[in-house]
C-alpha cells in the first residue's frame, strides 16, 4: 500500500480551512459478482448458460454467484427491468444479472440474452443470438464476449482458438480447439510436429516438423484446406517461427555450422536476415506488441536467460538475472510483461513474469507439477500453459497474477506447446 498522509490544515478557503485530507491508493482488484439466472424456454438454454458460466469463471473477471442462494423466482419475475425485483439480487451480492430465454426453430437454437446493472436497476445489454444446434456453444461465447466488451471496453477471448500439440500413438500432432478446449481438430497426421504458431489473420499455422526425414524444419498448414507446405528449410534445423504483429515478417531459430541464431524472414519469402550472431545458442523469439523488439533466450552468458533486442538485431539487453535456466519467453499483448518458464532450485520449471521496464520477476506457479510454455490471450488477461499438476501434461489457463488456474484440455496422452490464437475477424 502506498500511503501518503497530508494534513491540509493551513491553506484553502475559509469554509474548509481545517478539513484534513488523506490519500488512499493501491486498490485491490476484485472479480465482479454476477448472477446467471436459470434460463426460461427450451432446455438448450441451460446448456448455453453452462458454457457461459464456464467462460466467465475461467476469465477471472467475474465471480459467479451460487444459484442456490438466489432469492428471486425467475419464473415469476420476468426478464425486463420493470418486473425484476433488483433488491432480491442486491441481497445476494449481485452487481450484474444475466437473464436468458431460449427457443428452438428447426435446427437453430435462439437465445435472447439480457444483461442488467443491479445497483442501478437498469438494462445494459440485450440481444438475440442464434446458431445451429451443433454449434450452440458459440452462442454463449459470442454473448460472453459482448458482456466483457460492455464492461471493460476491451475484447473478450471466448471466441478465440488455441493451437497445441497432442501426444498420439503416431507421434505429436498439431491440434486447434476452442479457447475452452472444446472441439479439438487435429491438423497434422504423421511424424513429430511441434511449436505451432498462428499466422496472420488466423487462417494458417506454422509449425516445426520432422516430416521430411531431414531434421526439424518449418512448415505451414492451411486451416481450411489442411494443405501443408514447407516454410523454411535451412542448415541443421529451423524451428520456432513467430509472426510479427504487422504480419509481414516472421522470426525463427536456425542452426548453421553448429551455431544457433535468430533469423528474420519476410512472410512472402525472400532474403533472410540473421539477427543474432553470438557464440551461444539463441532461440525462442517472441515479438513485442508494437513489433519493434524481440524477446529471446540466449546462453551467451553461461546459462539460458531472457534477452530482448531491437527487431534489426541491435540494442541487446539481458532481462533476467535470477535462476540458471529461463526459457520460452512470451511478450504480453500490453507490452509491459514477458512471461517465461524458469527452473528453480528444486529443478522444477514454473511460470514467471518479468516486468520489461523494472526487471522485477514475479512467480505465477509453485508446488504444482511442472509448468511450461506460456502463451498470452490476445487481450492480455489470461495465459495458457502446459502443466503436469493433474497428472499428464495438459493445458491450463491462469491470470497474470498467478490466480484462477483452470484446466483447458483433457487429452488422454497429454497436451503441450500451446499458442493462443488471434481475436476473431469482424
Amino acid at each position, binding site marked *: 500500500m502506498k500511503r501518503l*498522509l497530508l494534513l491540509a*490544515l*493551513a491553506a484553502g478557503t475559509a469554509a474548509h480551512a481545517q*478539513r*484534513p485530507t488523506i490519500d488512499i491508493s493501491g486498490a485491490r*482488484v476484485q*472479480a*465482479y459478482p454476477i448472477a446467471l439466472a436459470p434460463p426460461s424456454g427450451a432446455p438448450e438454454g441451460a446448456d448455453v448458460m453452462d458454457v457461459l458460466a464456464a467462460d466467465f469463471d475461467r476469465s477471472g473477471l467475474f465471480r459467479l454467484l451460487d444459484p442456490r442462494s438466489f432469492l428471486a423466482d425467475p419464473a415469476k419475475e420476468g426478464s425486463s427491468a420493470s418486473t425484476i425485483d433488483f433488491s432480491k439480487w442486491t441481497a445476494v451480492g449481485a452487481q450484474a444479472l444475466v437473464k436468458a430465454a431460449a427457443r428452438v426453430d428447426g435446427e437453430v437454437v435462439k437465445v435472447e440474452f439480457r444483461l442488467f446493472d443491479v445497483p442501478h436497476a437498469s438494462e445494459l445489454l440485450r440481444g438475440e443470438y442464434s446458431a445451429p444446434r451443433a454449434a450452440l456453444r458459440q452462442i454463449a461465447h459470442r454473448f460472453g464476449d459482448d458482456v466483457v466488451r460492455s464492461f471493460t471496453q476491451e475484447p473478450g477471448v471466448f471466441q478465440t482458438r488455441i493451437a497445441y500439440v497432442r501426444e498420439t500413438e503416431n507421434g505429436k500432432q498439431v491440434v486447434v480447439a476452442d479457447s475452452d478446449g472444446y472441439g479439438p481438430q487435429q491438423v497434422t497426421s504423421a511424424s513429430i510436429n511441434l511449436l505451432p504458431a498462428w499466422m496472420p489473420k488466423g487462417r494458417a499455422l506454422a509449425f516445426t516438423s520432422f516430416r521430411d526425414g531431414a531434421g526439424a524444419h518449418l512448415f505451414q498448414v492451411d486451416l481450411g484446406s489442411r494443405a501443408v507446405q514447407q516454410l523454411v528449410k535451412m542448415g541443421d534445423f529451423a524451428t520456432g517461427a513467430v509472426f510479427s504483429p504487422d504480419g509481414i515478417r516472421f522470426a525463427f531459430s536456425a542452426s548453421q555450422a553448429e551455431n544457433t541464431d535468430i533469423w528474420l524472414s519476410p512472410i512472402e519469402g525472400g532474403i533472410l536476415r540473421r539477427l543474432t550472431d553470438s557464440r551461444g545458442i539463441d532461440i525462442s523469439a517472441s515479438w513485442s506488441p508494437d513489433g519493434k523488439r524481440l524477446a529471446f533466450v540466449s546462453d551467451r552468458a553461461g546459462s539460458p536467460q531472457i534477452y530482448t533486442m531491437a527487431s534489426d538485431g541491435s540494442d541487446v539487453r539481458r532481462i533476467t538475472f535470477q535462476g540458471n535456466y529461463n526459457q520460452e519467453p512470451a511478450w504480453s499483448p500490453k507490452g509491459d510483461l514477458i512471461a517465461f518458464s524458469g527452473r528453480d532450485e528444486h529443478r522444477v520449471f514454473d511460470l514467471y513474469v518479468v516486468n520489461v521496464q523494472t526487471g522485477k520477476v514475479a512467480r505465477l506457479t*509453485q508446488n504444482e507439477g511442472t509448468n511450461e510454455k506460456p502463451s498470452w490471450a490476445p487481450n492480455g488477461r489470461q495465459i495458457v500453459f502446459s502443466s503436469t499438476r493433474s497428472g499428464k501434461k495438459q493445458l491450463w489457463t491462469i491470470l497474470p497474477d498467478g490466480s484462477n488456474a483452470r484446466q483447458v484440455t483433457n487429452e488422454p496422452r497429454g497436451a503441450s506447446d500451446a499458442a493462443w490464437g488471434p481475436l476473431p475477424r469482424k
Partner: protein
Amino acid sequence: MTEAQPQTVYRSLLGGDPRIGWLGPGLALAIALHVAVVAAAFFLPRLLDRPHPLRKPVIAHLVALGKPRDPRLMPRKETEPPAAASSSSAPATSGAPSSAKGPPRQLTRQEMMERALAGAARRTRDEKPDPERAGQETGSPGGTAASVEEGEKYFGEVEDRIHANYLVPSVVSERERLYLSATVVIYIGRDGSIVKHVMTKPSGNSFIDQALVLALQRTRLPAPPAELAKLVRDEGLEINFKP
C-alpha cells in the same frame, strides 16, 4: 680568503630553530589545524542541521517469519497479505447470515501482535489532553496535535480501514483502473460512524464510483479522539482515492 663556516642543518620540523626561537612553522601549523577542527565541530552542526520542510510519515512493515532468500534464486510466489480485521471490514448493513459461533480458538502470533499494537494505540489515544499541550510554530490555530505524528495516528487508522475495503471491480478496464481518481468527503460521527459522504470529484467511471461508495459503506471507523471529533463531524475528512 677566509675559510667558510660549516652550515647547521635542522632536519626536524618540530625542532626549534635557534635563529627564530622555539615556535617553528610546524608547530604553528599544528595549532592552526587544531583550532580549525574545534571551530568546525562547533559551527558545522548548526549550519547543516536545518529543520526539514516536510516530514513524511514513516510506515513500518512487519517482516514475515522465514529465512532470507538468496537473490540469485528464482523468487517464491507472493502470497496475499492477511485480510483486514473482520470487525472493521464487515459490511455495516450486512444481510448475509453470520456463521455459527464456535469455541474460542487460540490466537495466532499475528493476531496477538495486532491486538498488542491496537491496545497501545488505544491507551495513547485515551490519555487526557494536556491543557498546556505543545504545538508547532508552523501549526494551525485549529490544530489539535502536538506533532505531525500524533495528528496522523487517527487518520492513519481511518486510511487503513477504508483501504481494506478499497476494491475495484475487475471489469473496469486497466486503462481506467490505473489512471482514474476520485475525491470523497466523509463526515464522521462521535461514535465513528460515517454520517454522510459527498463525492466532490467523481472518477468518471460509474463502476469505480460505485466501488468507492461501497467501500465507505462497508467500513467501520474507530471513534475519533475528543480533540478531533468536532473537526471530522463538521468539516469532514477529504479522501483522495488514487489508483
